[in-house]
Protein backbone atom coordinates (compact mmCIF):
# COMPACT_ATOMS: atom_id res chain seq x y z
CA UNK A 1 0.00 0.00 0.00
CA UNK A 2 1.58 3.18 -1.13
CA UNK A 3 -0.65 6.16 -0.92
CA UNK A 4 0.34 9.63 -1.98
CA UNK A 5 0.00 11.72 1.13
CA UNK A 6 -0.03 15.49 1.15
CA UNK A 7 3.30 17.03 2.05
CA UNK A 8 3.23 20.35 3.77
CA UNK A 9 6.68 21.16 4.99
CA UNK A 10 6.69 24.94 4.84
CA UNK A 11 7.69 25.87 8.39
CA UNK A 12 5.89 29.19 8.06
CA UNK A 13 2.62 27.48 7.19
CA UNK A 14 2.71 24.41 9.42
CA UNK A 15 0.48 24.98 12.37
CA UNK A 16 1.44 22.82 15.32
CA UNK A 17 -1.35 21.72 17.65
CA UNK A 18 -0.87 22.81 21.28
CA UNK A 19 0.33 19.39 22.54
CA UNK A 20 3.09 19.59 19.90
CA UNK A 21 4.00 23.11 21.00
CA UNK A 22 4.19 21.90 24.61
CA UNK A 23 6.40 19.03 23.46
CA UNK A 24 8.91 21.11 21.51
CA UNK A 25 9.02 23.68 24.33
CA UNK A 26 9.79 20.79 26.69
CA UNK A 27 12.78 19.94 24.49
CA UNK A 28 13.98 23.50 24.06
CA UNK A 29 13.59 24.30 27.76
CA UNK A 30 15.38 21.04 28.60
CA UNK A 31 18.41 21.99 26.52
CA UNK A 32 18.51 25.50 27.98
CA UNK A 33 18.16 24.17 31.53
CA UNK A 34 21.15 21.91 30.84
CA UNK A 35 23.12 24.80 29.43
CA UNK A 36 23.36 27.49 30.68
CA UNK A 37 20.83 26.45 33.36
CA UNK A 38 23.00 24.05 35.41
CA UNK A 39 26.08 26.32 35.59
CA UNK A 40 23.84 29.29 36.53
CA UNK A 41 22.24 27.22 39.29
CA UNK A 42 25.61 26.08 40.68
CA UNK A 43 27.15 29.54 40.40
CA UNK A 44 24.18 31.06 42.27
CA UNK A 45 24.32 28.42 45.00
CA UNK A 46 28.06 28.96 45.36
CA UNK A 47 27.63 32.74 45.63
CA UNK A 48 24.89 32.35 48.24
CA UNK A 49 26.83 29.85 50.39
CA UNK A 50 30.48 30.80 49.93
CA UNK A 51 30.83 33.77 52.28
CA UNK A 52 28.77 36.69 53.63
CA UNK A 53 30.53 38.90 51.06
CA UNK A 54 29.65 36.72 48.07
CA UNK A 55 26.10 36.38 49.43
CA UNK A 56 25.78 40.18 49.49
CA UNK A 57 27.32 40.45 46.01
CA UNK A 58 24.71 38.01 44.77
CA UNK A 59 21.93 40.09 46.36
CA UNK A 60 23.28 43.18 44.57
CA UNK A 61 23.51 41.22 41.31
CA UNK A 62 19.82 40.36 41.69
CA UNK A 63 18.84 44.03 41.76
CA UNK A 64 19.94 44.39 38.12
CA UNK A 65 17.03 44.56 35.71
CA UNK A 66 18.84 42.40 33.14
CA UNK A 67 19.68 39.67 35.68
CA UNK A 68 16.12 39.72 37.00
CA UNK A 69 14.66 39.38 33.51
CA UNK A 70 17.01 36.52 32.65
CA UNK A 71 16.10 34.83 35.92
CA UNK A 72 12.37 35.12 35.19
CA UNK A 73 12.94 33.66 31.72
CA UNK A 74 14.81 30.68 33.18
CA UNK A 75 12.15 30.37 35.84
CA UNK A 76 9.64 29.93 33.03
CA UNK A 77 11.85 27.33 31.28
CA UNK A 78 11.99 25.44 34.56
CA UNK A 79 8.27 25.76 35.36
CA UNK A 80 7.27 24.71 31.86
CA UNK A 81 9.65 21.74 31.87
CA UNK A 82 8.41 20.77 35.34
CA UNK A 83 4.68 20.93 34.44
CA UNK A 84 5.05 19.34 31.00
CA UNK A 85 7.19 16.61 32.56
CA UNK A 86 4.52 15.79 35.12
CA UNK A 87 1.99 15.64 32.24
CA UNK A 88 4.19 13.09 30.46
CA UNK A 89 4.50 11.02 33.63
CA UNK A 90 0.70 10.98 33.93
CA UNK A 91 0.33 10.09 30.23
CA UNK A 92 2.83 7.24 30.75
CA UNK A 93 0.47 5.88 33.40
CA UNK A 94 -2.25 5.86 30.71
CA UNK A 95 -4.28 8.69 32.19
CA UNK A 96 -5.64 11.41 29.93
CA UNK A 97 -4.62 9.77 26.68
CA UNK A 98 -7.84 10.60 24.80
CA UNK A 99 -7.43 13.42 22.31
CA UNK A 100 -9.73 15.89 24.07
CA UNK A 101 -8.15 15.23 27.47
CA UNK A 102 -4.66 15.51 26.00
CA UNK A 103 -5.55 18.89 24.45
CA UNK A 104 -7.06 20.03 27.72
CA UNK A 105 -4.02 18.97 29.78
CA UNK A 106 -1.62 20.67 27.37
CA UNK A 107 -3.57 23.91 27.83
CA UNK A 108 -3.41 23.38 31.58
CA UNK A 109 0.38 22.80 31.46
CA UNK A 110 0.89 25.97 29.44
CA UNK A 111 -1.23 28.10 31.75
CA UNK A 112 0.05 26.63 35.04
CA UNK A 113 3.66 27.06 33.86
CA UNK A 114 3.08 30.75 33.20
CA UNK A 115 1.05 31.33 36.38
CA UNK A 116 3.75 29.69 38.56
CA UNK A 117 6.41 31.76 36.80
CA UNK A 118 4.50 34.99 37.44
CA UNK A 119 3.80 33.98 41.04
CA UNK A 120 7.39 33.12 41.97
CA UNK A 121 8.68 35.83 39.63
CA UNK A 122 6.80 38.62 41.40
CA UNK A 123 8.05 37.28 44.75
CA UNK A 124 11.64 37.56 43.48
CA UNK A 125 11.07 40.94 41.87
Amino acid at each position, binding site marked *: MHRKRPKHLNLMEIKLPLPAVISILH*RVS*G*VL*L*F*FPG*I*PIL*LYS*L*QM*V*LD*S*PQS*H*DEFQILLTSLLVKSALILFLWFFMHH*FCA*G*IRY*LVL*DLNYGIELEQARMSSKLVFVVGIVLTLWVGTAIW
Partner: protein
Amino acid sequence: MVKRIVTGAHYGLLDWLAQRVTAVVMVIYILLLVVVLLIFPPNDYAAWKTIFGNQWTRITSFLFFVSLCWHAWIGIRNILMDYIHETGIRLTIQVLVILSLLFYTVWAIDIMWG
Protein backbone atom coordinates in the same frame (compact mmCIF):
# COMPACT_ATOMS: atom_id res chain seq x y z
CA MET B 1 6.38 -12.46 7.42
CA VAL B 2 8.23 -9.33 8.30
CA LYS B 3 11.75 -9.97 9.39
CA ARG B 4 12.47 -7.72 12.30
CA ILE B 5 16.06 -6.80 12.80
CA VAL B 6 16.76 -5.64 16.31
CA THR B 7 19.56 -3.12 16.37
CA GLY B 8 21.02 -0.76 18.91
CA ALA B 9 22.67 -1.19 22.24
CA HIS B 10 19.51 -2.32 24.10
CA TYR B 11 19.76 0.37 26.77
CA GLY B 12 16.59 2.09 25.58
CA LEU B 13 14.23 0.73 28.22
CA LEU B 14 16.66 1.32 31.08
CA ASP B 15 17.19 4.91 29.96
CA TRP B 16 13.47 5.47 29.45
CA LEU B 17 12.85 4.27 32.99
CA ALA B 18 15.82 6.15 34.44
CA GLN B 19 14.59 9.40 32.93
CA ARG B 20 11.23 8.96 34.67
CA VAL B 21 12.62 7.77 38.00
CA THR B 22 15.10 10.68 38.14
CA ALA B 23 12.23 13.04 37.26
CA VAL B 24 10.16 11.76 40.18
CA VAL B 25 13.16 12.05 42.54
CA MET B 26 13.65 15.67 41.44
CA VAL B 27 9.95 16.55 41.82
CA ILE B 28 9.94 15.19 45.38
CA TYR B 29 13.15 17.06 46.26
CA ILE B 30 11.88 20.33 44.78
CA LEU B 31 8.56 20.11 46.64
CA LEU B 32 10.40 19.36 49.93
CA LEU B 33 12.81 22.24 49.32
CA VAL B 34 9.90 24.61 48.63
CA VAL B 35 8.26 23.55 51.92
CA VAL B 36 11.55 24.11 53.82
CA LEU B 37 12.05 27.52 52.19
CA LEU B 38 8.47 28.54 52.99
CA ILE B 39 8.75 27.46 56.66
CA PHE B 40 12.24 28.94 57.17
CA PRO B 41 12.52 31.76 54.62
CA PRO B 42 16.27 32.43 54.42
CA ASN B 43 16.76 36.18 54.27
CA ASP B 44 20.43 36.37 55.18
CA TYR B 45 23.68 34.46 54.76
CA ALA B 46 23.45 32.73 58.15
CA ALA B 47 20.01 31.33 57.34
CA TRP B 48 21.22 29.87 54.03
CA LYS B 49 24.23 28.42 55.82
CA THR B 50 21.96 26.80 58.42
CA ILE B 51 19.78 25.16 55.78
CA PHE B 52 22.68 23.87 53.67
CA GLY B 53 24.85 23.13 56.71
CA ASN B 54 22.38 20.39 57.62
CA GLN B 55 23.75 17.04 56.52
CA TRP B 56 20.33 15.91 55.26
CA THR B 57 20.01 18.95 53.04
CA ARG B 58 23.44 18.21 51.61
CA ILE B 59 22.75 14.53 50.99
CA THR B 60 19.31 15.09 49.41
CA SER B 61 20.62 18.01 47.36
CA PHE B 62 23.43 15.84 46.08
CA LEU B 63 20.97 13.06 45.27
CA PHE B 64 18.90 15.65 43.40
CA PHE B 65 21.97 16.80 41.52
CA VAL B 66 22.98 13.28 40.48
CA SER B 67 19.40 12.72 39.26
CA LEU B 68 19.57 16.02 37.39
CA CYS B 69 22.81 15.02 35.63
CA TRP B 70 21.52 11.57 34.71
CA HIS B 71 18.21 13.03 33.48
CA ALA B 72 20.04 15.71 31.47
CA TRP B 73 22.36 13.15 29.91
CA ILE B 74 19.49 10.97 28.65
CA GLY B 75 17.56 13.97 27.33
CA ILE B 76 20.50 15.64 25.64
CA ARG B 77 21.66 12.34 24.14
CA ASN B 78 18.20 11.70 22.69
CA ILE B 79 18.14 15.17 21.15
CA LEU B 80 21.65 14.75 19.72
CA MET B 81 20.66 11.38 18.21
CA ASP B 82 17.62 13.03 16.62
CA TYR B 83 19.31 16.01 15.03
CA ILE B 84 23.02 15.29 14.55
CA HIS B 85 23.58 12.40 12.19
CA GLU B 86 27.30 12.84 11.59
CA THR B 87 28.71 10.20 13.96
CA GLY B 88 32.02 11.96 14.65
CA ILE B 89 30.42 15.28 15.50
CA ARG B 90 27.73 13.64 17.62
CA LEU B 91 30.24 11.56 19.59
CA THR B 92 32.41 14.63 20.18
CA ILE B 93 29.46 16.61 21.53
CA GLN B 94 28.34 13.62 23.64
CA VAL B 95 31.81 13.36 25.20
CA LEU B 96 31.74 17.11 25.94
CA VAL B 97 28.30 16.75 27.55
CA ILE B 98 29.52 13.87 29.75
CA LEU B 99 32.65 15.79 30.75
CA SER B 100 30.62 18.90 31.60
CA LEU B 101 28.22 16.84 33.74
CA LEU B 102 31.17 15.25 35.59
CA PHE B 103 32.66 18.70 36.12
CA TYR B 104 29.30 20.00 37.46
CA THR B 105 29.08 17.04 39.85
CA VAL B 106 32.53 17.78 41.29
CA TRP B 107 31.52 21.46 41.54
CA ALA B 108 28.32 20.50 43.40
CA ILE B 109 30.34 18.36 45.87
CA ASP B 110 32.69 21.30 46.38
CA ILE B 111 29.77 23.64 47.14
CA MET B 112 28.14 21.19 49.56
CA TRP B 113 31.18 19.87 51.40
CA GLY B 114 34.12 22.06 50.30
